[in-house]
């Protein structure tokens, strides 16, 4: 289904470009993009690998941070009230302001890009996880207490499984954001990665190559989101 829809979009795009005679340096027809992609076939491997690594590392760290934050927010109303505005603020800071800090902290390593991916992707996970934790029914909690559950057991056996579907809902969004976050992170200075590639192609007006990298990014995002969906099946009934 997904595949068919995307195919349909590409077809419509191709037709539109040809009918309205849109300049290829603005919006190249998908056929050109695919040809350019094929011509540069030797290059993609390293860039895909780099961006993929950044996004995956970012997502993993996001999950960890989001988990810790939302557990803290579950345990203490005070903490929730304190962290909430910081969460929002973290999403309204333009990268331009913090990029030097990231580079100073993380140097030109992969970690500065991972940091951007984390910044973009942890937010939806925290929000969803927080909502999931709050949906635990008080009756179930009472039942657990009466059966003699410790605080940790209540978390492990009740709160966490209850929040799991919300967690995956947030993770699905976060997967898409991790990819774009990694791409944007590559603007902090990189020599590899699809964001790096896209930017160079754009600067050199090689629009077909630019869109080739965009195609790959989209596929990567889709794959990550569907991977989360698939994973969810294994965890959530």
């Amino acid at each position, binding site marked *: 289904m997904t595949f068919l829809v995307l195919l349909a979009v590409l077809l419509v795009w191709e037709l539109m470009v040809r009918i309205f005679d849109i300049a290829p340096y603005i919006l190249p027809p998908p056929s050109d993009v695919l040809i350019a992609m094929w011509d540069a076939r030797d290059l993609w491997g390293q860039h895909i690998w780099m961006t993929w690594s950044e996004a995956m590392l970012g997502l993993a760290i996001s999950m960890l941070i989001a988990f810790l934050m939302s557990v803290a927010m579950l345990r203490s109303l005070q903490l929730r009230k304190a962290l909430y505005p910081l969460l929002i603020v973290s999403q309204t800071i333009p990268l331009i302001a913090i990029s030097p800090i990231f580079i100073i902290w993380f140097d030109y390593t992969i970690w500065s890009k991972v940091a951007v991916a984390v910044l973009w992707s942890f937010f939806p996970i925290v929000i969803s996880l927080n909502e999931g934790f709050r949906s635990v029914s008080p009756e179930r909690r009472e039942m657990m207490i*009466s059966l003699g559950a410790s605080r940790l057991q209540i978390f492990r056996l009740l709160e966490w*499984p209850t929040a799991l579907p919300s967690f995956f809902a947030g993770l699905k969004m976060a997967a898409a954001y991790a990819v774009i976050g990694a791409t944007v992170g590559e603007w902090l200075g990189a020599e590899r990665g699809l964001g790096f590639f896209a930017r160079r192609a754009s600067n050199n007006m090689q629009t077909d190559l630019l869109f080739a990298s965009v195609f790959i990014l989209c596929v990567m995002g889709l794959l990550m989101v569907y991977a989360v969906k698939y994973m969810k099946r294994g965890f*959530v009934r």
Partner: protein
Amino acid sequence: MSGEGDANVFVADNICFGFPGKRSVLDQVTFALKERHFHVLVGPSGAGKSTLLKLCAGLLNAKEGTFLLNGSAADCSQRLMQSVYMPQSDTLLPWRTVLDNVMLTLELQGKQSAEEMQERAMALLDSFGLRDCADAYPDQLSGGMKQRVMFARTMLKNVPLLLLDEPFSALDSLTRKQMQRWLLDVWQRDRRTVLMVTHDIDEALLLADTVLVLPSEPGETVQALEVTFARPRSFELIYEPAFVERKRLLEHMLLGGDNL
């Protein structure tokens, strides 16, 4: 129903309770549970039956008054240790199979091996007629079956005081009767002290040694009605004139003397 079994194993003495920002729910509630007796608590909706059970279970702290366990004052944690509370609503964990839901109790105690736990849980499921759906998930069960699973899970906690909040309310009359019978059987075997809430007068009289009537208005006293039919009781009991007479009496107590 006499001899050592008549000791007051659990006493609620002048218990007062109100939810924050609400007027009092329970005011000076006093009653006693006799060792190894079956007590049924009846009362109008909203009278505070569930709240009272939670207080007994140690899930809530009384504003005033004391609870006595075997004669000595028992705080929340002591009550938690010595009793088990089964809530009114569906508290099965939807992501666990029936077997795993039942095993939860044993897992939380954490003293047994997985096989032992499984064995004990399966044995109990068997006696509940739930063996076939051990691997089903709660959402695949009828409301009645769910309640039975919850019941099984509660029974597995090995404590002297069972606090059951309308365990049979979601059961159809057939299963309900089977479960009543089964409960009587089990209870007669190990005779734990039971305090059970119900809305069904027949059920109350069929099961109880003592029916406690919680008044609709906080402040009035809890009335107790002794039910002295010989055990084991047959289901045909409910058609007998003596039973019908008790039923009339209890209903009139409940309705406050006014016959509607």
